[in-house]
């Protein structure tokens, strides 16, 4: 395999797992959808064999742990504003299509874009629209019927058409749930505030999921390479997400469509992943370094929920639970492997890993 032939992404649907391998253990804990990709090149350092040679395309975070903010929620709001401005400037003369799943992240993205001074220009000139499905409505119907339907053009989600339309830039809320904590964190304990338990408290849970101890070993070793001391369960799962989960999400629109043009896959030019912007990366690393207090998984969405409520005034939204609305959308997967030289292959090769 040449340098260029390194994989960027591979679908888990096409894989067989060697019993007891890291990916086998990982799948048992996280399910079949995410394909863990070693963002920081840590596998080799901690002795995990990775037969795939994935090439990382997720940007390196830039952070400074000195002189950190005292008011994170304010900074959180300002980051929305700054990234929304970057979205409009990146779109330039192109149209914007917001990929709206109805979940907290895509709703927050939409709110940020709607509050930006450039929104009205884009909307009035017919360059702002929302791509959604019926399932996108059910998660927050009030927002759809009161805010979206009367004001913004809508169309059914069609990644194929949008990815092949050079006049349109997609905006997604992908990986919003990795900015603070990680919504995949298991509820492994009945202790109130279990997310703030010392990270070692979760290792018996891992050892139950994976009696070989490989999962616990890997996560423990990854923590040794974190940019700050990982103390809590919340920080541990956030760091695991940062290390392994971002790239698969990043590639989604490219393997959910037949597009041949992969040239912008590593950038935000064609698909602006709002929460993968450098500014969010910085916020995420700096905020999580403070080991912020969260009691349970639902509460780690407090910041985005509050951001949405500040716009809608609908305080009942603060108690809303996360719904996996994206999973309900019909789509197929035309590409199963994407390479670093931007070729792709849809095939039946099955790897052991």
């Amino acid at each position, binding site marked *: 395999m040449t340098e260029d032939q390194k994989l960027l992404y591979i679908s888990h649907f096409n894989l067989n797992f060697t019993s007891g391998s890291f990916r086998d253990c990982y799948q048992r804990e996280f399910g079949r959808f995410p394909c863990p990709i070693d963002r920081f090149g840590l596998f080799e350092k901690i002795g995990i064999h990775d037969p795939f040679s994935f090439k990382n395309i997720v940007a390196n975070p830039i952070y400074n742990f000195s002189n950190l903010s005292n008011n994170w929620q304010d900074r959180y709001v300002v980051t929305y504003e700054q990234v929304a401005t970057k979205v409009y400037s990146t779109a330039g003369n192109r149209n914007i299509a917001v990929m709206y799943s109805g979940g907290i992240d895509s709703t927050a993205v939409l709110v940020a874009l709607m509050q930006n001074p450039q929104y009205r220009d884009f909307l009035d000139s017919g360059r702002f629209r929302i791509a959604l499905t019926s399932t996108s409505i059910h998660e927050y119907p009030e927002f759809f019927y009161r805010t979206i339907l009367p004001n913004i053009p809508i169309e*059914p989600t069609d990644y194929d058409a949008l990815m092949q339309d050079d006049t349109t830039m997609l905006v997604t809320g992908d990986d919003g749930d990795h900015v603070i904590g990680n919504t995949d964190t298991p509820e492994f304990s009945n202790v109130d505030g279990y997310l703030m338990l010392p990270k070692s408290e979760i290792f018996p849970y891992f050892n139950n999921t994976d009696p070989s101890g490989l999962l616990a070993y890997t996560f423990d070793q990854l923590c040794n390479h974190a940019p700050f001391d990982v103390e809590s369960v919340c920080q541990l799962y956030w760091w695991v997400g940062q290390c392994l989960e971002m790239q698969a999400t990043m590639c989604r629109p490219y393997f959910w469509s037949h597009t041949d043009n992969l040239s912008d896959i590593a950038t935000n030019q064609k698909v602006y992943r709002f929460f993968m912007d450098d500014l969010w990366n910085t916020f995420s690393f700096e905020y999580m370094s403070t080991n912020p207090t969260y009691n349970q998984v639902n509460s780690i969405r407090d910041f985005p929920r509050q951001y949405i409520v500040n716009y809608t005034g609908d305080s009942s939204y603060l108690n809303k639970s996360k719904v996996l609305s994206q999973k309900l959308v*019909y789509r197929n997967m035309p590409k199963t492997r994407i390479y670093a030289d931007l070729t792709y292959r849809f095939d039946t090769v099955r790897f052991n890993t």
Partner: protein
Amino acid sequence: MIDQIIVKTLVYQPTGHVVWMLTAAAGTESVITYIPNLDNTLDYKVYVGPRPTKFDIRKAFVNYTLIKDDTPGKISTGPLADHHLSAVKLSRAKCFAAQIIRNILKFQDEKHNTTTGPWAIDGLDLNIIAGPIKRYYNLNDVDAKKFAKFKQQEINLISSKINAAKLDAELRIMQAKTVEELLAQIELIKVYSMTNSEFNFKSLLVKNSCI
């Protein structure tokens, strides 16, 4: 009638041997049946009559001796020449593949109610269908029609995507030159359809003497 059977067959034209069949007690079969004749090169013939007593239809089918010719009410057996065997085996494998893939993709039609829901009607009148939407969601005329149009576009899009996937699957099956190529295409279609089915197509082909 109860002693009668119906045998729907796809027949290899040069010899009349049955490539694919479906049997049922006469009168009990579904009115609309999917016949996996992808490129129309096989003859579609139907036998209705008493169950043969001199041979076992199923066994004759599996060992490639079952023949359905043009004579109504007649189904018989006879040897298949060796030089036709591989072509008939491949055709049979393709028929099974077409049926299996159709059932896999039918799951998506069912999930999305693309043929059974209130939006799945050609020429749906937006003014009429917007009525309940307007009342139920307390919308004005403009928003109700906008929503109705979206729903109609959505069901058309999903339906078209699923039909495109069906066509893609049929074309992949048709283009296979060998059973091995066909098996590879089936695996590909399974991935493409996101079913990740554990169904072992190869074992079905072995059971029906295609391999």
